[in-house]
């Protein structure tokens, strides 16, 4: 612990000591979020009570914890995955000081386009019988491509028209959803090849008598890990933080500020596409009101995860944990048999509380810095 002591500098140099510059492993920023999550899980395990369910193999009735059981946690992970993946994308945008209100609409449009493609090649579609070796990747590509394309257009709008991202994405939110309406003529698409649903996203594994669907969880972890690495180790990642921290200084330092912005909106759209793909495969249907109001849940997750709307701050892991905390609370409301109507009030309070704690933390840090100066 001695190494953590700050180096005290006196005003008069006693003797010229050559200081050795040391680089320390950066502090783990998400300790607070992990703590909250563990505490929530602990409380729910204790107070959630238990449940009698029949064992599949023996038919005997067994007692299991309501919260801490495999299929509940699996459902929790699946529910989280949509929001967490989009929250990671939203975090990129928020770090640059922007906001993306259109993720819900992009999610919907990507899902609808993917659904139309998959239905065409589904069991009763015009292209039935096509090889799944290209239908499945094709469906994935349509979802991701539409998502990234919509995000790219958002980016062009923000950079090219020099309008605040709030306004641009507010507009595209309506436009993208409108396109989804027009394309589907307000009908739902459900007829997908099962290689895409049961064979891919909804692939089931059995674990101690419970059916689990690990693919959404895996994709969520994969996206978060990539985003974490990208922000930390890539040139663009560094530039994203610089643009959000001080856009003018970034411009004066010769960074491709516009290009960086286009990239983050494209990534945000791409994550919406990924989430749409999971939704399609898992539920096997899509309609034009998919993802209504998701944009606010996604931004809430990013903010609870420590992203600052002023820009310059945020982490991918934080976004994941933020989404997870919100879902655990949702889950807890069900498990504890609290009236569903209270859930919004509780979640809203949690968001405000999280931001408040974050600000207190930062005020303390600034005070420390002023004293050190």
């Amino acid at each position: 612990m001695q190494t953590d002591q700050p180096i005290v500098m006196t005003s008069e140099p006693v003797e010229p000591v050559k200081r050795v510059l040391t680089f320390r492993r950066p502090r783990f920023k998400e300790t607070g979020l992990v703590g909250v999550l563990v505490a929530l899980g602990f409380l729910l395990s204790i107070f959630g009570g238990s449940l009698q369910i029949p064992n599949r193999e023996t038919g005997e009735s067994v007692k299991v914890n309501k919260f801490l059981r495999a299929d509940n946690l699996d459902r929790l992970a699946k529910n989280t995955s949509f929001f967490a993946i989009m929250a990671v994308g939203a975090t990129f945008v928020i770090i640059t000081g922007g906001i993306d209100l259109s993720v819900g609409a992009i999610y919907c449009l990507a899902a609808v386009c993917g659904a139309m493609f998959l239905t065409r090649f589904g069991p009763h579609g015009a292209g039935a019988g096509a090889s799944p070796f290209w239908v499945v990747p094709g469906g994935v590509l349509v979802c991701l491509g539409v998502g990234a394309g919509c995000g790219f257009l958002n980016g062009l709008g923000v950079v090219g028209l020099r309008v605040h991202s709030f306004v641009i994405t507010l507009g595209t939110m309506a436009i993208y959803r409108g396109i989804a309406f027009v394309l589907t003529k307000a009908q739902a698409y459900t007829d997908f090849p099962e290689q895409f649903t049961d064979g891919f996203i909804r692939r089931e594994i059995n674990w101690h008598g419970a059916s689990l669907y690990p693919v959404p969880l895996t994709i969520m972890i994969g996206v978060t890990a990539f985003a974490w690495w990208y922000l930390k180790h890539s040139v663009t990642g560094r530039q994203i933080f610089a643009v959000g921290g001080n856009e003018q200084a970034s411009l004066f330092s010769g960074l491709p500020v516009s290009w960086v912005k286009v990239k983050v909106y494209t990534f945000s759209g791409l994550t919406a596409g990924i989430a749409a793909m999971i939704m399609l495969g898992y539920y096997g249907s899509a309609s034009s009101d998919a993802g209504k109001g998701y944009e606010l849940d996604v931004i809430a997750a990013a903010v609870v995860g420590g992203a600052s709307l002023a820009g310059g701050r945020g982490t991918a892991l934080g976004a994941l944990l933020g989404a997870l905390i919100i879902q655990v609370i949702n889950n807890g409301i069900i498990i504890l048999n609290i009236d569903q109507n209270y859930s919004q009030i509780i979640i809203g309070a949690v968001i405000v509380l999280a931001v408040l704690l974050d600000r207190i933390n930062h005020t303390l840090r600034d005070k420390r810095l002023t004293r050190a100066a």
Partner: protein
Amino acid sequence: MSSEASIPAVRFRKVGKRFPGTIALEGVSFEVMPGSCHAIMGENGAGKSTLGKILAGILRPDGGTIEIDGVEREFHSPIDAQRAGVAIVHQELSFCPNLSVAENVCLAHLPGHAGRVDWRKLHKNAQIYLDQVGVDCDVREELSGLSGGQTQMVQIAAALATGARILVMDEPTSSLSAVEAQRLEELIARLRRQGTTILYVSHRMDEIFRLCDTVTVMRDGQHLATSPLAQTNEEELVKLMIGRCWQKIFPVHVERAAGAERLRVKHFSSPGKFQDINFAIRAGEVLGVAGLVGSGRSEVALGIFGLDPKVSGQVVIDGCKVNPNSPQEAMKWGIGLVSEDRKSQGLVLGMECGENITLSTLDRLSRGGVIRRRKERDVIVTFFEKLCIKAASPQAPAQSLSGGNQQKLVLAKWLARESRVLILDEPTRGVDIGAKAEIHRLIDELAAAGCAVLMVSSDLPEVLNLSTRVIVMRNGRLAGRLDRSEATAAGVLKLMTGCGEENLAGLPPLAANRMSLSCKPTNLLS
């Protein structure tokens, strides 16, 4: 009357203020007598504006007390200050441009009942104050439709509308035309006759001698001296503001042979900013650019760096026409810009010091878009050691550093890129003396290593001391070129202002200047 006069209108007692990274004020104590016009002078970053803001309740001091009319006061907001009779006229225009002139004037006290604004009364009241300051405009007009000078006068009217008896004016004439400045002077004289106390922050000598009766000189956040103006003169004040032991701290210029021509600027113009600027810098030279604030110096720097889309003319580097239209393009040709405002343009304050250094060099420190950590750290360590940057660690956020060390970070950013043409805009503004000397030494070393340096500075001794040659700008035009041997403080000032030569004739030429600036400036006044 005389017994009243013995209680100071304002008394500062050991007032201190720190910002993250800098000490803005330290133990400032002095008194302002009622009915006086008290000048506060000092270089940029001396703490004048901070002091004014503390008096007006915009900033809260970290230490010390303020007494108004002999009563100790603590202001939590500008409203508290207004209640105590203190108002401020800001240096930066801070107003609601979308509201009407009348609303802006009476913003603090909109007349009316039960939340309803009495427009007729509002317009009448506003007109009274506007007449008092002598602005000729319609009170219903939106403020954004007024000229900069008119806006400034409206701001003064608003300060009067709060019923202030103590008025802080922070560089009020910086955006005024000659006629408007004349009107302001008349107004100040009138206000003083009515018994208003005025704190006049400025560094324009002529104004201060015409308007004020007492002067306080500040430097580096400290109070140096307070004296009646009748007992001092311009020369003494200049020495106090800048006076340091030059021979001791600053490197003595060494003559060296200049190399090939690096940068040439031909017929460089930007509408409304500067016109027909021509100069050339050779490798190993430091070209000083002197001029008043607003003379177009910084704009030329931005133009060369590709940040002004409207420039015309030529920028030639190493014999090639380049005319960069973005910083990236300018950087490709080896140009680097240390801009005027390091906090908003130079650094990403929330990022680590090390990350700030490598910000412009990431393309060279990466492979396939992935940053090579070890290489990056080597660069960071190199420049931390080379520039003696003092920070808790290279990973400390840039905002935790002092002004001087922050400036070194900005310099390191461009050195890391191996810039061959370095444009420095106010390289030592708001930097403490020690760091200033180090930065000067560094500039000298850079030039010696074959870099072409263009140095824009308001700090005249800095320009005279470091430059191989000096160009002077006035009102967006080149007012003169001087060789090192011909450059004297008096000569440059004359070119900068275009007038006032008779007052400056007494200043010694550079060589003598350096010797005569005393090591103990406080003795001059007391």
